[in-house]
């Protein structure tokens, strides 16, 4: 798994001669007993939108705080623009930040909030006013300068927070779950707006979220965190279609798991004997030698019902347990090889023959759509 991370980061290295942000063997412990971040290596080229994605407590915020300078790294070096910043205080790093609860200063108006980083930099009054106005226009709130943060809606506060992080033209912006407090619709709208701002300004963004669809929509690359380790660092499509281990397969998108034992492997295709005795062909991605346990990962939309034999490499019989009508597709829950949570998305095509609960049907898929990964204990 760390293999996957280094593979991809070296790929990133090729695109830019020197990484803009670089974590090198960074470790972090708060209490001297548990490593919250374990040996973090990460290169971020300039202009990239990188998302740290992972479950709660996986060390995303901690990594971000180390980059911002609010938490010292217990071990390792962090570089920004080629310079080690381990000993640079946060106010000298020139990094813009958007916090989850926006952290807009309640005793200042919106305009004063935006002017704050410019005042610190001792800019002229006229220049400050111009920049503040431009920032407000960028986030489409040109009339709101005189209001207090408390007089704005959640979405408006969010925009102001983004504008404030950008107003002093930082090269790097960090965002820690900036949309976490918004409702779904507003969140989706803001995702596009932040994405557009990123594209227009060309700043580097490091974004933290535990919402995978948010990560998939916005990012150039995603670093999947778990337990203080980057499990995989890839582009969104890569992550979804080519997960390198069971955690990532399970965490990103919907996934069907089948547990079994490897019998043989040849040219990247392996045969796996499931616990109920049926044999399947799968892409050998992250497996040990013959006889070792493995978990197969299979996306629900890659499974066909009643396949014609020449289209698929594997067929297996399962029982339909539940049908949920979702308009464009029918979500079918089945019992396949003892897995009662086996999901198949059946497209709502005119030609498909109707399914019935309790019926036994054949399902099939191609070997390359089924990835043999590290064993996941049940």
């Amino acid at each position, binding site marked *: 798994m760390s293999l996957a991370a280094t593979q991809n980061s070296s790929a990133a290295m090729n695109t830019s001669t020197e990484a803009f942000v670089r974590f090198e063997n960074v470790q972090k412990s708060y209490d001297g007993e548990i490593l919250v971040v374990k040996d973090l290596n990460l290169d971020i080229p300039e202009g990239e939108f990188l998302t740290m994605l992972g479950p709660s407590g996986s060390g995303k915020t901690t990594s971000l705080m180390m980059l911002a300078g*609010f938490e010292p790294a217990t071990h390792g070096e962090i570089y920004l623009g080629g310079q080690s910043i381990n000993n640079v205080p946060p106010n000298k790093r020139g*990094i813009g930040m958007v916090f989850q609860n926006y952290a807009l200063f309640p005793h200042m108006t919106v305009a004063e909030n935006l002017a704050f980083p410019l005042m*610190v930099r001792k800019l002229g009054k006229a220049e400050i006013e111009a920049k503040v106005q431009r920032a407000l226009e960028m986030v489409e709130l040109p009339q709101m300068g005189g209001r207090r943060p408390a007089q704005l809606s959640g979405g408006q506060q969010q925009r102001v927070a983004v504008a404030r992080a950008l107003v002093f033209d930082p090269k790097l912006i960090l965002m820690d779950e900036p949309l976490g407090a918004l409702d779904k619709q507003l969140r989706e709208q803001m995702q596009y707006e932040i994405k557009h701002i990123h594209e227009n300004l060309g700043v580097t963004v490091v974004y933290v979220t535990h919402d995978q669809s948010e990560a998939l929509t916005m990012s150039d690359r995603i670093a999947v965190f778990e337990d203080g380790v980057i499990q995989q660092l890839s582009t969104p499509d890569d992550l979804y279609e080519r997960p390198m281990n069971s955690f990532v397969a399970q965490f990103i998108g919907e996934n069907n798991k089948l547990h079994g034992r490897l019998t043989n492997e040849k040219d990247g295709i392996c045969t796996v004997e499931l616990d109920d005795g049926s044999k399947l062909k799968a892409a050998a991605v992250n497996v040990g030698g013959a006889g070792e346990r493995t978990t197969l990962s299979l996306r629900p939309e890659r499974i066909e019902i009643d396949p014609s034999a020449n289209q698929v490499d594997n067929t297996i019989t399962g029982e339909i347990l539940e049908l949920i009508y979702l308009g464009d597709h029918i979500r079918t829950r089945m019992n396949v090889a003892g897995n009662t949570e086996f999901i198949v998305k059946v497209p709502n095509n005119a030609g498909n023959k109707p399914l019935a609960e309790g019926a036994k049907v054949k399902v099939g898929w191609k070997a390359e759509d089924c990835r043999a990964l590290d064993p996941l204990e049940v």
Partner: protein
Amino acid sequence: MTDVAMSAPTNHAPLIAADGVPLKLKLARTTRRMKWRAFLLTVPLVLFLLIAFVMPIGEMLYRSMHNPTGSNVMPQFSVAIQDWDGEGLPSEEIFKIFVEDMTAAKKNREVGKTIGNLATRVNYEIPGSRSLFTRTARKTKNIKEGPYKEALLALDQKWENPVLWRTLQRVSKDYTLAFYLAATDRKYAENGDIVSADPLYQIYLPILFKTIWMSALITLFCFIIAYPVSYLLSTLPLRTSNLLMILVLLPFWTSLLVRTSAWIAMLQTQGVINNIMVYLGVITDESRIQMIYNLTGTIIAMVHILLPFMILPLYSVMKTIPPTYMRAARSMGASGTYSFIKVYFPQTIPGIAAGTLLVFILAIGYYITPALVGGSDGLLISNLIADHIKKTLNWSLGAALGTILLVVVLVFYWIYNKLVGVDNLKFG
């Protein structure tokens, strides 16, 4: 939309509920029970406040201006003397009433109506005149017939002094400002004008001002000590901050007397601190420092006692300021000091305002600690008030001083309101 009730607001006709009763009336009826219940719940408190707070203060205000000693002791004379024009001596008629009233009063044993009461009252105005009254009162029963004027002057030549009679005329009025004058170190001159009191008797204003600036000083010290402590309390992890909070609150759980006595043991010339300093050679045995029974002692002990009242409001405000504000400020390039001044401090102002107001008002009326550790120059205005209520029994003067103190507090409160706005205060 054709519904009558729906279109009614545009016509400004009253809204009608479904059963034809006007909606306002209906609402009032349905909420009446709730209102009564809410009111009944507050009755004990309202009664308590009325009896324990409003009435005593009203009584104090009244007593500071109303002193009926003159008319109580000499009912006829106090009416008759008001007709006198103040020139020379009063008429023979008034002298006659005076002698008769005095003879009658001599026999009176009722509290508040004896010659002694009147003598004390006049003595406030003319120090040293007390014995004249008691001496004369013993002999007036011998004056059986006129001319009364000569007879009285024969008893004591001092009765020839018109100042005495003018004072008696003033004292005979039930309502007087004399006590407010006394409380502000002024008095009625012989001709009735208001002048400042003899320098020897000018004690109240200096002590009032001393009380104000000492309260300000105590408030300042409390603030300087409490601010960093509260900050620490609000940022430390819960377990440590709870422990610290207990240390802060510990004084609350100890008797005030115990705490004050502890300070005596610490600070007296033969006390712990002096002993340690002598032992360490910082001072010699002869030059032990006087730290108690003076201003220093009062300030130290009162800062200690009032500290929690500053810490608690500060803490409760700081607790609500998330650390991300400071982080946000720093990420925007502000130094730690700048972020503190521009971002953190302004947000603590409601707590500062509440804490300083609380401590200042408590300090300005504080009584027990200065009485115990203040010595003679650490006394505050409330100690004088207590003296007048308990020792000299000059309740009117005590009440006048108390009223002045109340007004001072209200003035400060008003200024405060203008500066920070009472709505902005946050006590906890």
